């Protein structure tokens, strides 16, 4: 059970593809930094491989003017929520 951290915008299709291939059935994905753009409903195609186990970092959404525009299937978490995800997942892999 891994926590995957992703910081690339959905235009970086290769990293989304590689992550999709590595993503396990009990894994969780957290979108941070420019990966917040993948949380918009229009970008939902790049997240199809992740089975709804997706969160996005609120602070990075707000700094990009994207708060309130997130796809309803994605959970918005703040920094405390980010920390909580690292508490419940023994290992964390960063994709960049």
């Amino acid at each position, binding site marked *: 059970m891994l926590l995957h951290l992703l910081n690339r915008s959905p235009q970086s299709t290769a990293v989304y593809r590689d992550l999709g291939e590595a993503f396990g059935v009990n894994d969780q994905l957290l979108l941070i930094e420019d990966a917040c753009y993948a949380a918009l409903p229009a970008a939902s195609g790049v997240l199809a491989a992740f089975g709804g186990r997706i969160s996005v970092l609120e602070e990075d959404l707000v700094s990009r003017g994207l708060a309130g525009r997130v796809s309803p299937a994605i959970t918005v978490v703040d920094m405390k929520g980010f920390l909580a995800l690292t508490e419940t997942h*023994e290992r964390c892999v*960063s994709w960049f």
Partner: protein
Amino acid sequence: MLNYALLVHGAPYSHQAALSALRFADTVVTSGHRLVSVFFYHDGVHNASALMSPPQDEVHLAEGWQRLHQDYGTQLLVCIAAGLRRGLLSADEANRHGLASHNVEAPFELTGIGQLVDAMLNNDRLITFAP
């Protein structure tokens, strides 16, 4: 309580990685966990520059890292090989290489990659922040 270590690959102010890492670090220490060390690698070594002088109304990343050391004892480890290549040297290293000045000072420490392996093996969590 968990022991955390962070790995920072991002140069300050070039990418968001260093700021993301510092915000996460602040959350770790204010939530009852222990932030044992931060390892600065690749362009992340620039976070250790003693000459960093951002405008006063912006986040001062180097001071943010130093504050973690002062308040919580976090080790600030800088990869020596990545630092030397990029002109990040302590007084000792500047002497050794015959250079006139240096820009890495305590609490930042120039260390080897073995310290990163140690951080991976001996902490509960290692979180990487890269550009």
